[in-house]
């Protein structure tokens, strides 16, 4: 195909979109709704996955220091902790700092605990070298002097690991299912718009158009439908995600787990939605018109 013919097909596909009127609108809406579903579910699943791996890779043990322990004693404890083979780093966080974190994630009401009313402990935040060692580090720290208790992110982790594993397996399953549904819905809508044009395709054959010549504008039209149909879902997903991210990341801050940052993640989702739209749109129309090309 030379560039002249391609240009002709391109113009033709746009004209056809315009002249199809409500058919185009119907196809666009179907694509938009489907892609919105895909976008939302994908964002949720990918974030669950992210937090799951955050939890899995959590090497942090919080060693709470007895209240009333002196600076000197705290230093002794620090040295003892540092002696453990599995420990990679130790960071001190005063109870003042701890309260700030709490206020940050749970709200200003907690401000009334400031000053002498602060019920929190000073904390050594200890990082193990490997996630699996957190349990051991916590147990050893708990036995040490001046230690009130030692918590590791995975306190509830064993159970969580199982849940997370399940979510992951299910997530992949649901994504595949959704993708299948998307393919089905989009190509079906486009098939219906093409069915209504069966006679047209027949006439094109009768006046000597090759199948390729007939097919290209339809394929392009399908691709446009996919592309334009992706715009609204992209806008909703992008704004919705940024909004939710702001709300959720504040409350997640103290846990040390993070949602995927909107920037690159959203660009990936956007591109994926566009890609799904275009490919399914083009394939849907290309394939569903095949049987009309035999006249």
């Amino acid at each position: 195909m030379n560039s002249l013919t391609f240009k002709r097909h391109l113009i033709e596909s746009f004209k056809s979109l315009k002249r199809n009127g409500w058919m185009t609108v119907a196809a666009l809406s179907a694509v938009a709704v489907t892609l919105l579903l895909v976008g939302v579910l994908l964002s949720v699943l990918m974030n669950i996955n992210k937090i799951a791996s955050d939890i899995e890779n959590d090497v942090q043990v919080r060693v709470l220091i007895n209240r009333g322990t002196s600076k000197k004693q705290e230093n002794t404890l620090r040295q003892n902790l540092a002696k453990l083979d599995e420990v990679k780093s130790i960071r001190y966080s005063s109870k003042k700092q701890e309260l700030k974190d709490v206020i940050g994630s749970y709200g200003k009401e907690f401000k009334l605990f400031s000053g002498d009313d602060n019920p929190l402990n000073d904390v050594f935040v200890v990082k193990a070298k490997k996630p699996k060692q957190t349990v051991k580090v916590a147990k050893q720290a708990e036995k040490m002097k001046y230690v009130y208790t030692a918590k590791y992110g995975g306190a509830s982790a064993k159970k969580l690991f199982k849940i997370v594993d399940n979510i992951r397996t299910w997530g992949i399953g649901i994504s595949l299912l959704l993708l299948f549904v998307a393919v089905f819905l989009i190509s079906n809508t486009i098939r219906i718009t093409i069915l209504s044009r069966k006679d047209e395709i027949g006439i094109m054959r009768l006046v000597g158009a090759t199948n390729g010549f007939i097919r290209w504008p339809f394929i392009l039209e399908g691709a446009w439908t996919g592309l334009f149909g992706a715009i609204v879902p992209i806008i909703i997903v992008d704004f919705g995600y940024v909004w939710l991210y702001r709300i959720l990341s504040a409350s997640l801050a103290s846990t040390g787990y993070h949602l995927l940052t909107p920037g690159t993640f959203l660009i990936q989702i956007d591109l994926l939605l566009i890609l799904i739209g275009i490919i399914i749109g083009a394939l849907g129309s290309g394939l569903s018109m095949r049987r009309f090309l035999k006249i």
Partner: protein
Amino acid sequence: MIEFTHVYKKYDNTTAAADFTLQIKQGEFVYVVGPSGAGKSTFIKMMYHEERPTSGKIKINEFELDKIKNHEIPYLRRELGVVFQDFKLLPRMTVFENVAYALQVIGKKPAEIKERVEHVLALVGLVNKADSFPSELSGGEQQRISIARAIAKKPEIVIADEPTGNLDPGTAEGIMDILERINQQGTTIVMATHNSTIVNERKHRVIEIESGKIVRDQQEGGFSEHE
């Protein structure tokens, strides 16, 4: 060159063509006449391969239609200009685009297409309807667009199924003038018609079909046998 050899066409319970054997040479002008339901359209549809014969051989120029492959059919149709009995205009395209389509299909350049389309629309007297859609046209206007589309690419063979069926006598004469003029330039014309006046006044070869049989094939014939 159009060649039918022992061609049969059977629909469920009608035989629309029984043992058609004939030749139409390049440059001939042929009327196909006969009562409604005789098999004229079937005869014509088999030429551009919309209908396939039940048995027998058809040859159109270099194409042997019993052996033609699906992807070769468009190239057969490019050598033919067809005026369909039901016009077959593309409903979503304007008059201009409908005629242009037949030229785009064969890869003509936009400038040439514009010139050719304007020329044939002027021939059939519909330049002012160029931007209308088929649904906005009268039956006779649609028919003339179908004719314009068929002749725009200057095909070697023009096959017309009742090209004057919806036209007043004056306009019909105008269309006949066009067809005879391109015939004089060497184009084969095969034309099914019910119009006795035209057949009797502009004498050409007449093939008469009755209930699926060729009952007469006469040079310079009249609309019926003894005219």
